[in-house]
């Protein structure tokens, strides 16, 4: 088992494209870290640099206490699961699982025992003699997981392993990976563009954009205290609503105002916003923190319903407040609302986020 340490990691492609910029990341032994971000944010490149499949332009990568910058992938003691499974098509499932161990000149009896154990864990026993082409996507991905665990490496790397699966299977495999990590605690790095996967799987989540790390934190931290507007909008589904508001302070009461909206903020927010009185800020409200009807005094506003999305368990409302659009989730599924209705929504004190419009950083104490 081993910790992973990335320091000042950079990757240039030619002189024009700077894919990964000064990434610093410490991953503890046995920790499960999810790298998440939109496509092209450098998360996969970072993972491939850890694997040794991409050269590093500058910076250091350590696995355990070894500097692995110039080690080829085979010497890094890692295992990787790829998006398209990357099983050896010309070999049976058994040979696929045995490949890595045979390369290490492990005794066949020992290989058989390791494969038996992995196959039991992943339910692969009936598939061992088949060729990858005869397996479904989910089965292939389980074989790919099996190929990793038989080798008992120091680090597991996952490169969007669930992206090619359908939604239901993806949820199943997510649970399977989680169970696997609990059974065999191994340092893992999981790359995904799906924030739900990142949040549910990661002990910690690393959010990247344009080659830079935006925030590193536990799922609760990145959800509750986003480091900037990008993270706030990226984490959470449906995404956080952003409204341009101006701050007004008069007679000890601080309020934020936009067209059709006036929210009186609580004392904690008021002290945060004091320095911004009279200026414009960006108000962020998560859809799940808006409730239908009158809530706390001063936090309600009127909105017109534009789209009603009935999910069965709840309704997502797309509403318009003045010029800005706001989504309110967590409306009970039985609520009678229709397009064009006027509804009363209420924000919750202490659940409001404020961002500086220029720096996009949160305005905080």
């Amino acid at each position, binding site marked *: 088992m081993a910790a992973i340490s990335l320091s000042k990691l950079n990757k240039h492609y030619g002189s024009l494209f700077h894919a990964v910029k000064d990434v610093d990341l410490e991953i503890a032994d046995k920790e499960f870290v999810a790298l998440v971000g939109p496509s092209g944010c450098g998360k996969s490149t970072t993972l491939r640099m850890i694997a040794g499949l991409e050269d590093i332009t500058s910076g250091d990568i350590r696995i355990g206490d070894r500097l692995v910058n110039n080690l080829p*992938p*085979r010497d890094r003691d890692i295992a990787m699961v790829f998006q398209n499974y990357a099983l*050896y098509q*010309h070999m049976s499932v058994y040979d696929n699982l045995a490949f890595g161990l045979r390369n290490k000149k492990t005794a066949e009896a020992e290989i058989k025992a390791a494969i038996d154990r992995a196959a039991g864990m992943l339910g692969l026993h009936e598939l061992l003699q088949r060729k990858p082409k005869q397996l479904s996507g989910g089965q292939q991905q389980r074989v790919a997981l099996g190929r990793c665990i038989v080798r008992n490496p120091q680090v597991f790397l996952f490169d969007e392993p669930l992206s090619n699966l359908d939604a239901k299977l993806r949820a199943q495999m997510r649970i399977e990976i989680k169970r696997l990590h609990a059974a065999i605690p191994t340092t893992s790095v999981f790359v995904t563009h799906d924030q739900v996967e990142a949040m549910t799987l990661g002990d910690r989540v690393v959010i990247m954009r344009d080659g830079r790390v935006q925030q590193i934190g536990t799922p609760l931290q990145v959800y509750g205290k986003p480091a900037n507007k990008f993270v706030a909008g990226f984490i959470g589904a449906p995404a956080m609503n952003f409204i341009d508001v101006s701050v007004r302070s008069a007679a000890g009461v601080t309020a934020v105002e936009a067209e059709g909206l006036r929210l009186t903020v609580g004392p904690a927010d008021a002290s945060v916003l004091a320095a911004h009185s009279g200026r414009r800020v960006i108000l962020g409200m998560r859809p799940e923190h808006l409730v239908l009807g009158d809530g706390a005094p001063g936090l309600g506003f009127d909105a017109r319903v534009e789209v009603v999305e009935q999910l069965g368990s709840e309704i997502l409302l797309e509403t318009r407040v003045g010029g800005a659009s706001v989504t309110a989730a967590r409306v009970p599924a039985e609520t009678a609302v229709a397009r064009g209705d006027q509804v009363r929504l209420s924000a919750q004190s202490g659940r409001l986020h404020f961002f500086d419009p220029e720096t996009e950083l949160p305005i905080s104490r």
Partner: protein
Amino acid sequence: MPIVTRPDFLPGLPKWSRKTLFALALLGICFAFAFPVLWLILTSLRPESGVYYVHRGTEFTLSSFAEVLSDERIVGAFLNSALISTLATVFSLLVTVSSGYMLSRFTGPAPRIWFGTIYVFRCVPYISWVLPLYFVTQSWGIYDTYTGLLLPHIAVHICFFSWLMKGFFDGIDPSMEYAAMIDGCTRWGAFIRVAVPSALPAISALAVLCWLFTWNEFLFALILTGNRVPMITVVMAQFVTEMGLRWNLMAATAVMALVPAFLIALFGQKYVIRGLRI
């Protein structure tokens, strides 16, 4: 999922007549292609006196085949052609597979220069290489030897078939090789143990194409060989004598030359089709 339906052949007609017409059309096309070959076989079986009126008379004989097979030079040419075709295929595949792989997987100056080189050679008409090659083989003292014929053939194969091989490898997902590299292989190991086995259908297809290319090749064989290394395609054309054209012997030789090519095409077509589809 989109459903693709084949457009009907002559939609207005009843089904049975459509089928009949379709069969007739296919038959016609097959006949157009097969006719010259059938004529060749017919000619080879006629006595010399009958070749100008092949369609007349009922006298058939195998004497042309017997005469051809008793000619040491022709039998030697068969063996030469088979040997050169096989050697050229083996040696060119050794280079072509790895060169196609390099063109598909690597970027940088070396693959670019290599790509440019074979591109240029492909742009030049094939026939324009022959004269320079003649002078080169002369000055190296390998004119009219196996080596002198083998090397140009290998060179042509590499230029023509590296591209095909690149296309095959482009269709094979590289992450399999990455997985192999992580599983303990070197770059070469990943190539030999994972990429090559996955490309085996394509490589078989290429082997068939290479072999047939050299077996059928005429120009190099004509210019770069003399009497010591006769090739079957050249020998076949040498039945033009002062005594006239020996059509029946030429046809008999041609029919025999068709047999190995035909067999290889027959057994190899499965791979060729599968390989070209990758």
